[in-house]
Structure formats: C-alpha cells, structure tokens
C-alpha cells in the first residue's frame, strides 16, 4: 500500500468529522471523539499492511519515504492520538466551564477533531525527507497545537500558556526557515537524501555557512524536543494547557521532532567536514538537558509542571541515544524508549486528569491519600511513576537500559555517569507522588469515580508498561 494513503485517510476522516460536527446535536459531541478514535484505529490497522514509499520518480517520492523508522513512528503517533481522543469526552465538563456559553456544547466538537489534523501533520513529518515537506507538516501540527493549548479561552492560565507557546514557537519557526534557506543556499538542495552527496561536493570555504544553517535548524528542533536551553516554554505551557493536550504535546509532538532530528543527523553523522562539531554539540545538549530537566524537577510541587520537567529529562536520555547515532542499536533504542514513554507519560496524565477533575487542582498534594481513596488510580500512578523512574520490569527500565548500553558502547562514559546521577534524582521527584498517594492523609475520604473510557485506557497503558518491560523483543524487532 502506498504510504501516502494513511495520511490522506486521516485528513479525510478529520474533514468528514468536521462536517458531521456542524449537524450533530450538542449532547452528541462526545460521539465525535469515539468515531475519531475508531477511525484512527482503523488507520492504525491499515498501517500493518506492508507499506511502500511513493514510486521513484513520482513527484511525491522526493518528499515522502516509507522506512522502518517512519512506519514505527506513524503507528506511535496514531496510538497517541487515539489515547488523546479517548480522554476527550471526560474532559468536556472542564471545557464547558471555560468556554463562552453562547450556544450549548459549542466548541466541544472541535476539541475532538483538531487532534486528527495534528496527527496527520505529525505523520507527514515523520515520513518526510525534504525540508519543505518537514516545514509544512511541522506548521500544520504546531499551529493546530497552538489552538488546542489555548482552548480554555476563559482560563487565563490556558491563554497565557498558548500565547507563550505561540510566540516562542514562532521564534523557532523563524529559525528553521532561516536555517533551511542557508542550507539550500550552500548545498542547492533541501532534500535530506541528496544532502550527503551535495555536501561532499562542497568546497571547504562553504562549510561555515553550511554549519550556520544546520545550527539554525538544530535550534528549532531543540525547541520542538524541549532540549536545553530551548525548553523554557515547557513547564509554563504544560501547566496551562488542557491536560489531554499537555499529554499529547509531550509525546506525539516530541516524537516527531526526534524523528526529524534523527533523519537530519543521520544524513550528516558520517560526513567528516561537519560530523565532529555536530557530535560535540549534541553530546553537550544531552548533558545540559539531563541536568536541567532532572534537577529543576526536584523542587516542583505541581504535578503538571513536574511532568513537564520530566518530559525535558526524558528528552535528555533520548539525546544520549541520538549522540550515539553511530551505533546500529541507537534508533531501535529511541523507538523503544518512545513506546514506553508513550505508555507511562500518557498513563500519568490520564490519572492526573481524573484526580484534578475530582479535587480541583494539579498540585502533588491533591494526590494525598489516593491509595485509600482509589486504589486503581493510585496503582496506575504508582506503575507510571515506577516506569518513569526506571524500575526493572517496566518499560522505562528497559528503555533506559538500552539507551545507556548504546551510549556506553559509543564511549560516552561521561554522559552515562551523568545519566546515573540524574536517574537517582529522578527517583526522588517521581517518588514524591508515590509518597503523597500512600503515606499522606487524604483531604477527604470519598472514593473517586473513573469514567469507563479512562478505566480502559488505564488498563491498556498499564498492561503495556509491564508487557514492554517484561518482553521487549517485539518492539525492538519492529525497528531492526
């Protein structure tokens, strides 16, 4: 099957849902999310039919490819979007409060449909091999995410979050466009596949402008994957955005950013003229991101902010693997890390969503005594936190193990040593949540009701964390 059909199917699904939305009664908006989730699940199944890239020579072939990397991450993004859509209906009560109520149920439907367009954008982004395509799909996804982040229009925190995201995002967009033009100016191509041979033909004097262009692009990608020092938007935006959006932002959008980074660096990694500088910069970025993400997370008291810093910290571990890109195992390690990261991050956000809905806030203290109030939620959060911290028999442990192993084999001893320190720090702040749940007195004793869809998600994501942690072979095999 031509790989383009998957993205086209997603876009068509989105457009159909938009049309259905205009005619559906306000009480039925939740149905849109279910249909969307089922539709995307259909696309996910379609992705298991053998995919092939557009025929060589066809116009699309210059922009889109289909390889193990793209297929894996297309599935990952579809899965993340499905999780998002399943959490949407139970988020409607919170949405209702913060949306202007001129019309009953107004604005709810779009919240369930916009993610589908983000999904299409991110899917294109992970399959793209040309910077024009990358840029267009990046913008499709990012602009839609701006809207989603500001969705709680009457909530100043959400507005603030969206504005910060918009302004800093625009800044990074400027850098990527500028970088692409420098790249094009020096090499005469925007195509990643043609890039190595184009660079090889360059005179030595052209290396500096080339590196300048690459640097600009790296800035924008670092913003996307929240690497230090371009991560400052993360805690603020994560805290203000609606919880399902935060969850999605930290998984799908970051995954697509990493894929582009892998593709760009994969093209440049072995070119003697630039490789030396790039290796050093990526290693440094990894180290700084690890330090910042983990240490700044320690004093946090707000769960969403904490998960924001945690997302930065995980970007640091992933960058460790990127810095070891010479190893054949680096890309499988990143892929596996993301599969586990999806399960554990989205699981913790699902629990957070339920808890903040029930208690009215995102602070860690809202989790106090959750073990007594709702053993299911507390158990799920325990599992997610254990996996985020990297305890054996969870996906997070195997992910970190693979990343560390890859880094060790490439001789990044300093990074691994630093990684060990930051993992220890990670235990501290993830276990704060566990301590609150099991060792603190609850503010009230009433149990917390969990909607059916979320209960399903908790079961599936929790099972995935354990399954990946005990039997990692299938996921690894998918990228080898």
């Amino acid at each position, binding site marked *: 099957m031509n790989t383009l059909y998957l993205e086209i199917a997603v876009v068509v699904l989105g457009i159909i849902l938009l049309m259905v939305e205009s005619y559906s009664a306000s009480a039925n908006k939740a149905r849109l999310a279910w249909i969307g989730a089922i539709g995307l699940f259909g696309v996910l199944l379609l992705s298991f039919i053998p995919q092939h890239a557009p025929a060589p020579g066809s116009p699309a072939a210059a922009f889109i490819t289909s390889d193990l990397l793209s297929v894996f991450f297309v599935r990952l993004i579809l899965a993340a979007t499905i999780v998002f859509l399943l959490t949407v209906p139970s988020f409607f009560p919170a949405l209702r409060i913060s949306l202007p109520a001129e019309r009953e149920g107004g604005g709810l439907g779009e919240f369930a449909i916009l993610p589908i367009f983000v999904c299409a954008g991110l899917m294109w982004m992970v399959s793209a091999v040309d910077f024009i395509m990358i840029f267009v799909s990046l913008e499709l996804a990012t602009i839609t995410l701006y809207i989603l982040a500001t969705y709680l229009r009457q909530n100043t925190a959400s507005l603030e979050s969206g504005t910060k995201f918009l302004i800093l995002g625009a800044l990074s967009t400027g850098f990527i466009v500028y970088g692409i033009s420098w790249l094009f100016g020096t090499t005469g191509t925007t195509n990643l596949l043609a890039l190595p041979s184009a660079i090889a033909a360059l005179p030595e004097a052209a290396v500096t402008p080339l590196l300048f262009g690459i640097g600009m692009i790296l800035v924008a990608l670092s913003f996307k994957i929240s690497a230090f*020092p371009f991560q400052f938007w993360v805690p603020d935006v994560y805290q203000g955005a609606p919880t399902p959006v935060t969850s999605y932002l930290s998984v799908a959008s970051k995954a697509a950013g990493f894929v582009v980074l892998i593709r760009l660096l994969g093209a440049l990694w072995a070119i003697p003229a630039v490789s030396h500088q790039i290796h050093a910069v990526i290693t440094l970025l990894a180290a700084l991101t690890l330090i910042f993400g983990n240490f700044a997370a320690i004093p946090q008291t707000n769960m969403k902010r904490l998960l924001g810093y945690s997302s930065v910290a995980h970007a640091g571990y992933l960058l460790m693997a990127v810095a070891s890109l010479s190893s054949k195992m680096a890309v499988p390690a990143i892929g596996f890390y993301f599969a586990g990261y999806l399960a554990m991050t989205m699981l913790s956000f699902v629990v957070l969503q339920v808890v903040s809905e029930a208690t009215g806030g995102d602070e860690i203290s809202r989790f106090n005594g959750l073990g007594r109030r709702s053993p299911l939620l507390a158990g799920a959060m325990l599992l997610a936190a254990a996996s985020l911290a990297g305890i054996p028999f969870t996906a997070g442990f195997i992910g970190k193990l693979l990343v560390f192993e890859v880094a060790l084999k490439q001789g990044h001893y300093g990074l691994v040593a630093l990684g060990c320190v930051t993992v220890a720090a990670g235990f501290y702040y993830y276990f704060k949540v566990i301590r609150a749940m099991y060792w603190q007195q609850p503010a009230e004793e009433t149990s917390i009701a969990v909607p059916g869809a979320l209960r399903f998600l908790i079961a599936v994501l929790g099972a995935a964390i354990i399954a990946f942690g005990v039997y990692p072979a299938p996921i690894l095999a998918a990228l080898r």
Partner: protein
Amino acid sequence: MNLSTVAWITLLAPLGAAALILLVTRTNRAAASGLAILSALIALVGGWTLFLNHAEGIYQGFNWIDFGKDFSIPFALALDPLSRTMLVVVTTISPLVFIYSLGYMKEEEGFWRFFAGLAIFLFSMLGIVLANNLVMMFIFWELVGVSSYILIGHYYGKPSAADAAKQAFLVNRIGDFGFMLGILLFWVATGTFDFSGVNDSAELFKAHPTLLAVSCVLIFCGTVGKSAQFPLHVWLPNSMEGPTPVSSLLHAATMVAAGVYLLARIFPILSASPDACEIVAWTGAITALGAGILATQQDDIKGILAYSTISQLGYMVTGAGLAISAALPMFHLFTHAFFKCLLFLTAGSVILGMHHEQNIWEMGGLRKKMPVTFLTYLCGMLALSGCFFFSGHYSKDLIMACAWEHHRGIFWVVVIAAALTPFYMTRQALVVFFGKPRSEHAEHAHESPLVMIVPLILLAIPAVCAGYAPVEHYFFHSVGSLTEPEVPHFVELVFGAAFVIGILAAFVIYRGAPAKDPIRIPAFHNRFYIDDFYFWIVRVIQGGFAKLCSFIDRWFIDGILVRGSATVVWTIGFALRFLQVGNIQAYALFFAAGVVGLLYLLLTIH
C-alpha cells in the same frame, strides 16, 4: 495435534487453572478443586502422550530476551529421554495427590487457595522439567520456591507455619544465589544458556578444570538448597508445617527432587569435572548418613519421613556424584517419588484419623482401625527400607554397588545409612501401628474416606513394582546405561546384612511398642543442634552486623551522604527554578542566548 502443541498444553494447563481460580471462580470450592484436578489430568494425559510417542527435540516458543547473537534467551521446551521420564513421574503423581487433597483438605480453611497453589506449583514444576536452558530453569526454580512458600504457609495464621515458609524461602535463596552465579559463569565461559550448549562445552574447559569445577559446584548450590542437602537441609523438616499433601507432592516426591533432576540435566558437563563430582558425592553421602541418624530420634510422624527424604535425596546426589550415568540418580528419584509420596499420604491419612495429632508416641495400634492405610504404608515402608521385591531395593542397591566400584569411602558411609533406614522405619511402624493406643485420639481413630484411600492403593502399585527390571528398562533404557557392576559376593551380603540388622535392632528395642522412647539421644533428637547454631549465627553475627550497618547508615550515609547530597541537589534545582521567571521576554532572551551559544560552538570546534 502435533507433539509440540501437546507439550505446550501440558505446561500451560495448570497455569490456566490457577489463573481461573484466582481471578474468576475465587472462593468457589467445587470450581477450584475441579479446575485444579482437571488441569492435572490434562497434564497427565499430555505427559504420557509425550512419553509414549517418544517426543524428542526442542519445541520453540518465543525469544524472551533478544539482544542479538551475544545475548538471547529463548523460551523453548526440551523433550528428551530424561525430561520425558521426569514428566511421567510428575504428571502421574500430581493428580493422585490433588484428588487425595479433596478428602484431606475438606474441612480446612482456604480450600480454594490451596488448590490454586497446587496448580501454580504443578505449572512451575513442569517448567523445570521442560526448560531447555538454565535461565528458564532458574525462573521456574524460583517459581516452585514461591509456590512452596505459599503452600507451606497455608495456615499463615499460625506463627510456626509462617516462620517455616519464610525459612524455606530464605534458605533456598542461599542455594539459588550460588546457582545463579553458576549460570552466569557458564554463560561467560560458553556464551550460551542452553543445556545442549553447556553440556557440549567440555572441550572448552579442557584447559581450565578449576573454572569448570567452580561453575559446577555453584550450580550444585542450587541442588543443595532445593534438595535440602547438608548444610542447607534445615528448611525441609520445618516445611512439614504445610498440609500433608504438600509435604507429599512438593517436599518428598517432586520439588525437592528437582535438584537431582538439575544434576542429571547437566550431567555430561558435571561428569567432566572429577573435583566437582567428588564434592557432590561426598555432600550426598554425608547428608544420607546424617539425616538417617536424625530420623531415628524424631517423634513427629512427618518429621521422621522428612529426614528420611533428606537422606534418600542424599543417595540420589551421591549417585549423580559417582559420575557413571545420569540414569543412576534418576532411577532412585523415580522409585523414591512413588514410595515416599505414598508414605506421606498414609501419614496424612493417619494424621486425619488421629484428629491432627502428629506425635507418634500418642498413637499406637492403628493397624486394626486403619487397615488399608496400614497395608499401603507397609508397601511404602518396605520399599524405602530396601526390602527384596520392593522398588527401593533395586535403585538403592544399584547406587551402593556403583559406590563400591568407584569410591570405597563413600560406599561405607552410604551402607551405614542403608542400615539406618529400615531401623527408623520399623521403629515408626511399630510405634504407630502396633501395640496399644496411647491416647484418646488413637482409641477413636478411623479409616479415611474413599477419596483418600484410592490414591493410596494406586500409589502402592508403583511403590512395589517401579524397580523391577522391565519397568526400569522401559523408562530408563534411553536415559542412560544402568548395568549393575560386578561386585564381590560379600558386598551383596553386606547389603542384606544392613537391611536385616536395621530391622532386627528396631524390633529388639521397640518390641511390644513401649509407651515412651526407650532411648533418648539429645544430640540426635535436637537435630545435632544445627538449627540452633544457625539461629545463633543469625541472631548474634548477622544481628550484630545489621546493628553496625544501621549505625553507619543512620549517621554516616543518611546524615552526611544522603542529606548532604540531597541538599546540594535541591539547591541546584531551586536555583535553576529562578531561570523559570514566567516572563516571555526573558524566555526569548534565553532562547537567543542559546542560539548564540550553539552557533558559537558549532562554528568554533575544529
């Protein structure tokens, strides 16, 4: 259905039953026992199908861990003559014990929990039998440990039972630690976990006999723990706190024999190391003699049998250590499984008839009140004692004859142990079944229900016949050679004399079934004070060390290292937080600084 499917079903049926009981039927008694027995019967049919069809080869499952060529652990089943014979033993005995438990556990609390535990055990035990590599075996090894823990602690409300369960688990951990190190050593040396690969690696070790000996002895540590060899034997007598069917199935017939099975599994490589074999053989011989001595002075009906089990396991381990054939220890394992299982089940029948009185000096004269139990007990007891025409005679004499041939020192040790066996068994038989009732309970003892009697009768058949030459040939001809070595005439006389002397001595001392034990040897009665010695070590040395650690931990590690570094890290985090000013102009400024820094680096590094 091909044999591969049969093998997988055989392994997974008990797991399915356990899962159904624990997750679905829960406290429903009929469903729990029904499911467990059904799964045991499926395993029975599967096990025999595999045996009769001579299932052979590796049945691939899936790659559990796969990090490329260097390190991968497949999950696969190995069918060969050895595992087939063991499979028959496990699957034949299990359903009988399961059915027997219906009667024995009828009045007990946690009936359903008990059957779930049995099913988990059966699954784990079959896993040990069918495992094709050391890691898989280790996993199932630990799983039988867990199921043993659960089942010994069945009456967890009783402190002695809870302690016994804990002790069994912890003592086994000591042995398993060595086992794990052994697995790792073999892996380092040979690069594989597969039994076939490990067993074929004798060439590799040619230049490193010490490494081989150390690796084998470390693996043997697993046997020492699981098969209760000296000095880790202490847990087995205490494990008798569990319900009697558990003692019978786990702590006599199958689980404790897993250690011997392990030795048979690695037999080709073990026999390549004479040093390791010497250690194994002596450990077995010392255990056989020591436990035999202790058995003579126990008062608990199950306690006697427990020490006797240790002693017999010692014979099997000796048999493995003689390095003649894997079939030698396996043959004794085979016969012992049936008659010892039978003995425990008759003991259970007695205990039930006696309203849970276990002291043999409260019994007496039960012969007439429990005739079937008595007759079946007699079959088991004679088989264990090594009486002519009973199964134990053939397998035990074979080990002793081989010992004469290969190792005179060990021969004399095990012969003395062989005289002790009929002695303590006759003592038990005379005190329990003959003479006058010594208590109220014994007066009113009654025969057990049919559901318990039938398994006894069914088990009595193999207890008598399992040693005959055709049976031996049928089950062992492909496992390894079992030809009896030529021994001088007087050696055969020694065997006979050992048996006769043992019985006669017991008759002389316990004739007329006295009311109290006429001999009292405190050292034997108190288990050579080994348990007390261990307790002292734990209390004084380990306790003292723990106090020291606690002091260091509290004042040095917690106080300086942890609090100190935590404060430093927290301060860094706190300081970093000030970068997060929340002001977008500041963020843009940081962003710009980042761009400048990144470009500077990119353009200046050469």
